[in-house]
């Protein structure tokens, strides 16, 4: 995508029917650090990579609780993400107050998408520069949606967004068929393994990732470092053990180096705007 004469305004169409400003907003999502979501029939796991700007600072919060039954992971302009999370929390609590019943996640996602669409059709606004992975429960079970700056939303069994998310997506594509009936523990393990894919060789430590779970009978909450480290230990040990054990971890360790080249927007570092 190169600079052209139709990309100044979000309200200007290109002759080929594209809105470049919206597409540029979607680029911003690719610059953010990775966020991953996957779901089974009864649970949704959201995980993300914690990247701090420097050793001195803390890392940015990328996963937000919206309600007991809905969580959201963001990638892109964190400030936009924070504002949208506040909107989602507001919608959820208003519904809860009026109907004493949790807001179905499918309806929240449509409200969010409609809000994003408005910004693609006003000359005095700009699109939100953040992609949202919304996981939640409603009457028909667990759902995972991806809301993008264009105002579109899609439902997924599993998805990854942000930089180097392609590596995670490839991993998820291989494994997604088993997610539907997976146990909660297997789902968490798969999420952490997908996060590992985006790290491209960097050692996976519990301090590098944040994992959250929600499910039937289990309100949204974050997993603590200890729990995450325990899960990491189960497959890292197998990976270190190079003596041909046919464990999953082994196959992953072998596959990981091969995946290093495939970042979403190339091998760029996290853009300063994310901070």
């Amino acid at each position, binding site marked *: 995508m190169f600079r052209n004469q139709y990309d100044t305004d979000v309200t200007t169409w290109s002759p080929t029917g594209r809105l470049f400003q919206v597409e540029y907003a979607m680029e911003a999502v690719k610059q953010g650090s990775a966020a991953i979501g996957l779901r089974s029939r009864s649970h949704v796991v959201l995980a993300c990579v914690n990247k701090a700007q420097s050793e001195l600072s803390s890392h940015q919060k990328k996963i937000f609780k919206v309600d007991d039954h809905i969580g959201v992971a963001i990638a892109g302009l964190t400030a936009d993400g924070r504002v949208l999370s506040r909107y989602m929390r507001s919608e959820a609590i208003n519904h809860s107050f*009026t109907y004493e*019943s949790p807001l179905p996640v499918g309806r929240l996602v449509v409200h969010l998408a409609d809000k994003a669409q408005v910004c693609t059709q006003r000359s005095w606004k700009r699109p939100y520069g953040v992609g949202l992975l919304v996981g939640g429960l409603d009457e028909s079970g667990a759902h995972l949606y991806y809301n993008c700056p264009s105002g579109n939303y899609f439902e997924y069994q599993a998805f990854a967004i942000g930089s180097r998310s392609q590596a995670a997506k490839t991993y998820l594509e291989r494994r997604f068929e088993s997610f539907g009936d997976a146990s909660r523990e297997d789902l968490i393990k798969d999420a952490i393994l997908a996060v590992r894919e985006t790290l491209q060789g960097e050692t996976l430590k519990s301090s590098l990732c944040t994992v959250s779970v929600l499910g039937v009978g289990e309100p949204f909450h974050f997993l603590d470092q200890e729990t995450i480290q325990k899960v990491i230990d189960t497959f890292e040990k197998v990976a270190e053990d190079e003596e041909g054990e046919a464990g999953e971890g082994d196959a992953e360790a072998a596959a990981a180096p091969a995946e290093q080249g495939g970042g979403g927007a190339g091998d760029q570092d996290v853009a300063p705007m994310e901070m």
Partner: protein
Amino acid sequence: MTFTIPIDNGDALKNAEADSQRTLYPYVTGTSIVAIKYKDGVLMASDMGVLMASSLCKFKGFMVDNECAGSYGSTLRYKNIERVKAIGKHSLLGASGEISDFQEILRYLDELVLNDNMWDDGNSLGPKEVHNYLTRVMYNRRNKFNPLWNTLVLGGVKNGESYLGMVSMIGVSFEDNHVATGFGNHLARPILRDEWRADLSFEDGVKLLEKCMRVLLYRDRSAINKLQIAKITEEGVTVSQPYSLKTFWEFQAFHNPTAGAQGSW
């Protein structure tokens, strides 16, 4: 999913003009509703009589209960009004009190159910959601000193679970295994407290409701002998055809009713 509420002018509580824009006393009213949970769902009974207040004289500033302080009694004006209506797929709403306000509530719920259906996403409003929505509406109206003059009974079944609740005109709201409005609270609920069981069959439930309605027929002057019983189960709503209860008037006390209080003229 928004609903409009009539807007009062600034001095809503003080000037005479504004009074004509808010409910001060009920004019066309229905009497008790009695409802119980039973084995398969909820049963709700109401009679079909609706009274109209006569020649109102205004008493400014009074907030009174069922009867209007300033009317010269009332006429049994309508004898075929259904006061129990189905809401969506899972709920039943019964109302006592001002009928026009009940119709207004039905319009709000119509819009609510329509919007819920338009989502077309596999989620639907259950009785609990409708009950809480109504609680919010009634309470908010009460806060503006412009109440919907009804006591509502909301029953329903969703995903195998029965639900029965009540909302009053001031927004008092609660759930129970059996509820009643108006005179039903005083005459029917004591019977229900003694005789209600969780595993009532349909026939036993109807018998129990008829027992309550019979007492109301004898003792509530606004009741008439023409009632309907509505049933809601997982399968849906059925409203019976109107019918009458058998009554017995041959009690000794009815033969010479003033025997104990002979006047001098």
